């Protein structure tokens, strides 16, 4: 079973980026934020993005208090700080540069904030006010009433478009005229790529993706570097319904309309997505419905397998060479699981996906678990060598790593827990055990009964490897050394003790 149903040269799978190209990722709406969250986890675990040396996520969501968005932004900031301390490396944890839009170049106008989120400037009004409805002519009012319901018109834009793409398509036009998009275009170079992440069944994503694509590829655009933008390799993942919402009489979002909206959007996409080189489709059969929250801080859904797979579409897109993408574009991709089950572990993933993420995620889990369970209390040469007693308590970058791994809001532990609790669940790890030998679901590490000293992946094993690696890694900075140590040791643990999953 292949990751995505398209032909390609397998040699390219191992191709490591050698260019200085950027990947701009537009994460639109709540799904955009959640997929970027999963992508960031993959990057933190060491999954490589080929053909680029920097990722620039731009989250587009007018709902400034959206719970999903805010925790994704917090996590991106944390990742960015960690990366900036670690610096460029060929492989390992946090190896990919993730930057804010404003940090890729000096903003001479000062109109672009140093943030991962597109700044809507706080649309604190209803859609009616946004349209200046009361000042419209009678004919225009008639047209507006034909296109929008009363509920649409009265809808406060502070929490987004509440599943209404017709509202989103009006408001999001502002995005194209914004300083952020101008700055993006000014700094767009030949070789840079663009990727859109959106859902097709909501409001913001369904409206924003085709709108942004159309404007970036518009031959008459007033944006600078229009030629580069038009020729840029562009991919997108559009997520079709994969969750349902609890039915509530007075709720503005009815998940029963998801399929209808999806069909309508797909029929539009069929003829109106110009300039796209690859489009990934993902969907799932909804199981347990989510709490019905149209937006705001309460819209904070558990991480879902579909979002992880959508993040893999970004990795997949970047593995194609320019020539492959341009030849016969657009390429359409779908994804199929190896086995249709509600509780997935690594063995249920297609081989290609498993090879891409299993080792890296396992390494990240070992790192996170050891970091939490043993690191603070270890008394060992590597601990003394890194002066961890002091560093863990006092140095901000060590605290940042702690946040990235263990924050109850956005940390690695929480992300894995949510994936395992959602439906369909992705449970590659047993998160309840402290025994490293039993952490990979369905793949316990074998301990040799006749070898008294071979306890598999024990604390002793990790300690011994950490102490050994601390002698061979010559790095004066203790944080960089700590990450390098765990990268080396977890890699060895996987290769020696786990081997394959």
């Amino acid at each position, binding site marked *: 079973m292949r990751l995505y149903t398209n032909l390609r040269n397998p040699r390219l799978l191992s191709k490591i980026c050698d260019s200085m190209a950027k990947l701009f990722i537009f994460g639109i709406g709540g799904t955009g934020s959640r997929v970027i969250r999963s992508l960031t986890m993959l990057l933190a675990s060491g999954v490589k993005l080929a053909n680029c040396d920097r990722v620039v996520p731009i989250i587009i969501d007018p709902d400034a208090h959206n719970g999903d968005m805010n925790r994704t932004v917090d996590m991106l900031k944390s990742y960015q700080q960690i990366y900036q301390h670690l610096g460029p490396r060929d492989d390992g944890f946090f190896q990919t540069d993730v930057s804010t839009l404003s940090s890729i170049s000096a903003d001479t106008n000062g109109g672009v904030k140093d943030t991962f989120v597109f700044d809507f400037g706080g649309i604190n009004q209803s859609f009616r006010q946004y349209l200046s409805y009361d000042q419209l002519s009678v004919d225009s009012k008639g047209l507006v009433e034909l296109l929008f319901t009363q509920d649409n018109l009265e809808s406060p834009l502070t929490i987004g478009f509440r599943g209404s793409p017709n509202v989103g398509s009006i408001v999001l036009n502002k995005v194209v005229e914004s300083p952020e998009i101008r700055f993006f275009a000014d700094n767009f170079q030949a070789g840079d790529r663009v990727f859109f992440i959106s859902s097709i069944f909501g409001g913001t994503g369904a409206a924003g993706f085709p709108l942004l694509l159309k404007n970036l590829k518009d031959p008459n655009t007033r944006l600078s570097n229009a030629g580069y933008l038009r020729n840029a390799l562009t991919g997108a993942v559009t997520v079709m319904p994969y969750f349902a919402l609890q039915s509530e009489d007075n709720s503005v979002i009815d998940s029963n309309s998801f399929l209808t909206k999806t069909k309508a959007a797909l029929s539009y996409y069929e003829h109106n997505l110009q300039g796209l080189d690859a489009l990934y489709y993902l969907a799932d059969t909804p199981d347990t419905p989510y709490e019905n929250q149209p937006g705001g801080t309460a819209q904070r859904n558990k991480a879902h397998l579909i979002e992880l797979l959508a993040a893999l579409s970004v990795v997949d897109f970047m593995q194609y060479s320019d020539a492959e993408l341009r030849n016969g574009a657009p390429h359409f991709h779908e994804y199929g699981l190896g086995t249709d089950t509600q509780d997935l572990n690594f063995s249920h993933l297609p081989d290609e996906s498993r090879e891409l993420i299993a080792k890296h995620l396992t390494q990240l889990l070992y790192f996170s678990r050891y970091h939490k369970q043993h690191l603070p209390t270890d008394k*060992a040469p590597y601990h003394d*060598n890194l002066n961890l007693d002091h560093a863990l308590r006092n140095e901000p970058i060590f605290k940042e790593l702690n946040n990235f791994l263990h924050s109850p809001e956005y940390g690695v532990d929480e992300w894995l827990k949510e994936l395992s609790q959602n439906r369909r669940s992705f449970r590659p790890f047993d998160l309840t055990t402290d025994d490293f030998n039993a952490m990979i679901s369905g793949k316990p590490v074998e301990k040799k009964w006749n070898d008294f*000293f071979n306890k598999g992946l024990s604390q*002793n094993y990790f*300690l011994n490897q950490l*102490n*050994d690696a601390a*002698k061979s890694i010559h790095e004066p900075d203790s944080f960089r050394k700590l990450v390098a140590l765990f990268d080396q040791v977890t890699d060895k643990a996987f290769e020696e003790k786990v081997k394959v999953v």
Partner: protein
Amino acid sequence: MKGFFRFLYELIGTPQPPSETPVYREVIFPNVGLLTIGLSLAMVLIFYYLINRAMGVATFNKLRHWVIFLVINALLAFFIGLWQTSSQEVASHSYVYWMSTWNAILGLFWFFLFSVLLKRGSTNASTTPF
């Protein structure tokens, strides 16, 4: 070498009874001294290089584990003193116990000295005892 060990062991006074002094100076001091140095070196190698490196045991590297080896080394050094005086059939005297005790203290010293010199080569105890 005999002069060195004579100097070392006569720091606590000359051997008793005086009639046994030649045996102590010619045989017992060099034997006890060399055996104690060898024992201490062996104990250090076992602690730092066998357990904490070759065997990959990473949880037997604390100060308390080192102290256990230190004490065992001192006890063995004490018994080396008794054994050597006994084997040379010197006259019974409380000096035998004083000399053995002094040898145990010297055992502590040798173990500490070898620890400081050799600990860096250990994987898991390179910072033990400090």
